[in-house]
């Protein structure tokens, strides 16, 4: 029985799609047809899909990567968090980069009357079982509460945003559907259109390449236990930046590829004199160190206020390395807490500038963790603040000590060679 009804729905859809495709790419008809009566929450058109692909592929850190999407009238903000919560990748695609960008939050369509919406909903809900229906009801209740809260906060804010969560890997697969492996220029001809009709709908992407049309609908989760509130996102304290380096992406990628990625952690050293970025992998196969001094061709700029070093999990850094292929330049900043901010300037087609940012927390060693736990147990604010500054001083001192040790080791190594 269900099969038959599914078949019918599919037939309806195919006929409707054929009609839709004829309408959609004829701009006049598109503006005059039904969709004008209800305006989707978000609608955008881009002449070249590579704009989206080149900015989203770098932040896809794993298979089945989920991303938070914030749609505002300024542009699209994508936020991805690693499993360990020690890495965060974000990108912002400005509204001005789209051929058409419309964000309409005031128009809420009446779904029950619109046939198209029902058809699209059916696609997503065909496999809904009773359990799923119950879950959906709960979600809707939660959503209503959230919406109420959102309305309250939004009335205070002038900038309204739509937040949703979707599978970034799936989104990238859809965007790349016409991409042929060996040809680089394929994307010149792929035109894309994104529609997010309403809060219950799916994230829709229509792509057209040389007469062939692909329509994708990606299910959207708006409420989730892992929902990352803006205030819980990782933030980089740029007031305490100690070291900055701007380096050519190809150079950085070449340098990093020399390291032993089988090891668990990678040391990042930033030196003041001589100004240099060093990266070291300590693995079972040995220690490998790569130096990027200021006078190297690949390094554009290096500002160092003090020597600093920290350990980072190689699994986290690997995500950045994969992203380098999409960028022309990378800026790495390290602050007092040891957090890394790696900003990549993306190589878009045409003269378009966009950035992707990675924030990576250092891998604290066990001693530090214990100390931090003890300190955080204290209730009195004053004591806590004192401890914090003490913590920072200790860290600095430890860094310097570490460097002295390192230098001694280096000297010893040299002696061994001589």
């Amino acid at each position: 029985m269900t099969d038959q009804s599914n078949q019918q729905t599919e037939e309806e859809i195919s006929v409707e799609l054929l009609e839709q495709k004829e309408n959609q790419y004829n701009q006049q008809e598109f503006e005059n047809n039904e969709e004008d009566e209800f305006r989707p929450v978000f609608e955008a058109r881009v002449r070249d899909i590579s704009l989206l692909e080149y900015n989203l592929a770098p932040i896809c850190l794993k298979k089945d990567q989920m991303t938070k999407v914030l749609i505002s009238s300024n542009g699209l903000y994508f936020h991805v968090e690693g499993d360990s919560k020690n890495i965060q990748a974000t990108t912002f695609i400005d509204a001005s980069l789209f051929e058409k960008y419309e964000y309409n939050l005031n128009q809420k369509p009446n779904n029950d009357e619109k046939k198209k919406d029902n058809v699209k909903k059916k696609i997503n809900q065909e496999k809904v079982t009773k359990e799923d229906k119950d879950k959906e009801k709960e979600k809707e209740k939660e959503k209503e509460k959230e919406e109420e809260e959102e309305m309250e906060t939004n009335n205070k804010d002038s900038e309204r945003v739509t937040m949703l969560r979707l599978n970034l890997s799936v989104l990238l697969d859809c965007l790349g559907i016409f991409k042929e492996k060996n040809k680089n220029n394929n994307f010149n001809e792929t035109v894309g259109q994104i529609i997010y009709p309403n809060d219950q709908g799916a994230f829709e992407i229509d792509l057209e390449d040389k007469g062939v049309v692909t329509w994708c609908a990606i299910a959207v989760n708006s409420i989730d236990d892992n929902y990352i509130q803006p205030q819980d996102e990782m933030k980089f304290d740029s007031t305490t930046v100690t070291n900055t380096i701007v380096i050519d992406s190809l150079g950085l990628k070449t340098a990093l590829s020399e390291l032993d990625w089988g090891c668990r952690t990678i040391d990042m050293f930033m030196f003041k004199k001589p100004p240099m970025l060093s990266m070291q992998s300590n693995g079972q196969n040995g220690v490998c160190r790569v130096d990027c001094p200021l006078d190297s061709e690949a390094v554009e700029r290096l500002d160092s206020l003090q020597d600093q070093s920290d350990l980072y999990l190689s699994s986290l850094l690997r995500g950045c390395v994969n992203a380098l292929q999409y960028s022309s330049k990378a800026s790495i900043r390290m602050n007092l807490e040891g957090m890394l901010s790696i900003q990549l300037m993306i190589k878009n087609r045409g003269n378009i500038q966009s950035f992707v940012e990675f924030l990576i927390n250092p891998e604290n060693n066990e001693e530090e963790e214990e100390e931090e736990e003890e300190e955080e147990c204290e209730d009195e604010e004053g004591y806590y603040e004192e401890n914090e500054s003490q913590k920072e001083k200790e860290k600095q001192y430890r860094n310097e000590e570490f460097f002295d040790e390192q230098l001694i080791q280096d000297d010893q190594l040299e002696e061994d060679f001589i």
Partner: protein
Amino acid sequence: MKFHATIHDLALLIRTVQSLVKIDKIGIIHFTAEQVSFILDSGQTTDDIQVWCSINQDSIFKTYVVESLSENEIAIEVNLNNLLHALKTGQVSNEMSWKLTKKDNLPYLSISIMCEINNGLPLVQDVPIQIITPQNLQRHKEPDLPEPDVQIMLPQLSKLQCIVDKMKEMANTILIKANMAGAMSLSIKTDIVSVQTLFKDLEHPQIEGQPEYVRDENKTAEIRVDIKKLRKVLYSHYVNPKNAVLCLVKNQALVVHVLLDVMYLTYYIPALL
């Protein structure tokens, strides 16, 4: 039983075997006076893809001698990976010859070439084979299917393969729909995503001996198949086909004919119900 031949168009042979090896490891090669046929049907016991391929013998072989007690036809079963390996090695030389031989009472297809180093170094590769008797060969028959509901010419296979490649990442089965008015769609549907690709203005094949087809929008058919199987079939773009025809037989199979002037490859993909 006697067989020896020299190869004329090694490139075509390699491309063919490259397409076939994606489907199955083991294949039957049937040599007749006019044709060389490849049969990959996994003994017809599983619901795997079946491939029936036939090439005009004179487009591959320069000299060709087939002699046997069964009307001068010979059928052998061979591991296609081994065959492909031997053929690729043979690319270094201009002259390749095939011969059926027996060593230690085991049958082999001996592929010999003359390397161009050191004034010609003979290199012989013996590919182990099994002889298929005429009775056994009878058991391998092309599937007998009813007239297809829809027949449509496919767009460029390599382009199709890219699309199916991406769809494969997202779902396990794919629904193929086509009508007799030049439209075909590929779609996948899961809880997370649904994707549909629509091709328009496709041609329909004109079959010899049959009345000219009539464009009919209402004559449609749809079939659901395993995505991985469809993707394997699309590797046939290696042979640089002139045409590819898709036939939909409702509830039974998807048939893809890949055509060149001198050969055809027919793939039978079972439908998922």
